[in-house]
């Protein structure tokens, strides 16, 4: 009996240990975050946060000539770490160094590049001299105008939504529920507005009013001057997408699979459109049409005034990346790695390009080239007219 029980316990122990160890491997890696930063383009240079936790400046000219990186005007910057070891993984398997990542598209302000950092529980805004980064071991070089908010070892909530720069003030929403207005020149807080819920979306600013949503189902209109609330509304479900603003309407996607049109002045609902999954990416408004990518693998073109569907296009994967429009095309990327070029009036596909890697980052279109930041740590420049990849830049730890 004893030996039987012992052998049985041993078998059980072995099985349990194997399962627990495999779980531990997953558990010890903690919740994985990589980031999916889009691009800020200024004077022929693309700025973006890499999936490996670095910020890059790549010259369009140097990349088109396939010069060795970094070439003239190019650089790579290691993000200063935020948070403390063990906060993600737990005390039993604390990572050696805390990781940081970039989801937010960087914002350019004069010679500064403002980057929102995601560090799991914590975050920070860093302003880098975009002509020649002067940071030294994570400390900004004030003589170059660089700053970090907050300063020292302090941190704010993790940043996912893209910071917006208006009149030398940077507006950024964070996971701690605050919308911060930061002086973009000196890196000092002007004011903070507490929304009471995690913010993973970007603010939109128009006519002195900031529109920002949080995960407590609320959409706020806030004065950009002093952060005072103008109105707020509560939607039936949490808000998944960043708001898009047209003349008099705000469009947001929610976790109950709806795209809502909200009156800008009053905050009243005008219409809602039901999709097959979440409208995660930011809708794009052009004329009287709202183009919205959905995680049900579809792109919808919806009348902005009536909420009626104009057309839909079925992609080969969920659409998490914010689409872009050109004169006559809608450019959409799927998580499956395809770029679709659709006629904006009909939704008919003109051509598609398979990049073979998941795309979550927002697209950028400029001069008939669409720039794509893919999950395989590569940036692609694709000619919209021909569908040809003009150049690609793959970064790794070696670069």
């Amino acid at each position, binding site marked *: *009996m*004893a*030996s*039987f*029980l*012992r052998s*049985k*316990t*041993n*078998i*059980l*122990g072995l*099985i*349990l*240990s194997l*399962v*627990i160890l495999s*779980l*531990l491997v*997953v*558990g*010890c890696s903690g*919740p*994985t*975050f*990589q980031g*999916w930063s889009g691009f800020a383009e200024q004077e022929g240079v693309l700025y973006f946060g890499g999936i490996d936790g670095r910020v890059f400046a790549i010259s369009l000219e140097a990349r088109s000539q396939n010069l060795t990186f970094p070439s003239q005007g190019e650089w790579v910057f290691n993000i200063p770490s935020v948070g403390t070891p063990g*906060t*993600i*993984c*737990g*005390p*039993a*398997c604390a990572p050696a160094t805390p990781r940081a990542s970039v*989801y937010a598209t960087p914002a350019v302000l004069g010679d500064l590049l403002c980057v929102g950092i*995601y560090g*799991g529980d914590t975050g920070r805004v860093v302003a880098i001299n975009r002509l020649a980064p002067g940071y030294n071991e994570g400390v900004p070089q004030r003589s170059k105008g660089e700053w970090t908010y907050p300063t020292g070892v302090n941190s704010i909530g993790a940043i*996912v939504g893209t910071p917006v720069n208006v009149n030398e003030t940077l507006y950024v929403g964070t996971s701690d529920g605050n919308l911060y207005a930061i002086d973009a020149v000196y890196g000092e807080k002007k004011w903070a507005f507490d929304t009471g819920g*995690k913010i*993973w979306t970007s603010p939109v600013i128009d006519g002195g009013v900031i529109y920002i949503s949080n*995960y407590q189902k609320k959409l706020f209109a806030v004065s950009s001057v002093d952060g005072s609330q103008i109105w707020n509304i509560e939607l*039936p*479900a*949490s808000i998944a997408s960043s708001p898009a603003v047209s003349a008099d309407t705000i469009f947001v996607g*929610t*976790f*109950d*699979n709806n795209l809502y049109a909200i009156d800008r002045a009053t905050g009243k609902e005008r219409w809602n459109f039901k999709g*097959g*999954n*979440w409208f*995660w990416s930011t809708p794009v408004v052009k004329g009287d049409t709202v183009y919205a990518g959905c*995680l049900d693998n579809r792109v919808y073109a919806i009348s902005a005034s009536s909420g009626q569907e104009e057309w839909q296009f079925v992609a080969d994967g*969920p659409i*998490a990346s914010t689409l872009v429009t050109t004169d006559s095309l809608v450019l959409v990327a799927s998580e499956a790695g395809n770029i679709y070029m659709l006629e904006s009036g009909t939704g008919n596909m003109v051509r598609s390009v398979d990049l073979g890697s998941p795309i*979550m980052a927002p697209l950028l279109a400029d001069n008939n080239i669409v720039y794509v930041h893919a999950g395989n740590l590569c940036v692609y420049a694709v000619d919209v007219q021909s569908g040809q990849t003009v150049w690609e830049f793959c970064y790794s730890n070696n670069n």
Partner: protein
Amino acid sequence: MVDIWNTIILEPVLNSLIALTNVLGGSFGLAIIILTVVVRLALFPLTVRQTQSTKAMQTLQPKIQEIQKKYAKNQQKLQQEMMKLYKEAGINPLGCLWPMLIQLPIWIALYQSIMQALGATPESLLSLSQHLYSWAAIGHAIPLNEQFLWLHLSRPDPNLILAILVGGTMWVQQKMVTPPATDPRQRSMTNLTTTMMPLMFGLFTLSFPSGLALYWVVSNIIGIVIQYFVSGGWGYLRAPSVPKPATAPAPAPTQKVILPQKAPTVQPSKMLQQASEESKTIKKASEEKKKGLFGR
């Protein structure tokens, strides 16, 4: 394979948890506790069978020792005789593993569900969208509130409270079912197992999301309660760690079916009969339960 796992295991657990959270006023911690109770209730027949099977095997102890002594030098024959003995007594020696084995996929699914449902990172929230049923209650509940008591359910408990609870309840549960060994070598092995497993799980608790550790604690407590009522007491928990007579089977103070000190003098056939009777009782109870469930 991944799709099958997601469809059959992950998505039902994930969506049940989210729907439960919505029903329970947004408390994800309560949803985990309710799910644990449901899982343990579903496994209740197996757990009872395991407990009773263990009890039945305890009655075979003297006979097993006799066989071990007799065929000490012939391992093959020893195994044959042991299997023969179990067969005659109507006991499946691996039957005790099933409740634990069945729970393993649920652990893994629960771990994945907690990480996804709480959307700890943008990636996990995005991934969650692909595993949700199109129920209105689900969409309105996302994203979930990860706060429960002092815990952030997607993160390990920074205090030692949950680790102690996991380790402690597991130790109690193991102690209740593990008889003290007579052989010093076996005793040290048994002690190692009963101490190491709770210790290991206690350490794991420091690394895993506290939501999963909450499942372990509740599951262990339910296990202890079942063990208490089915076995009729605290089992070997209150027994001395080393039985006084080296050859006698371990006494279990509250387990009346175990034959104490005089066990070696009982006729083997009588013991087999007793074990068989216990096994028959289990089968009978199981059949009656089946009739109750399906016989209408």
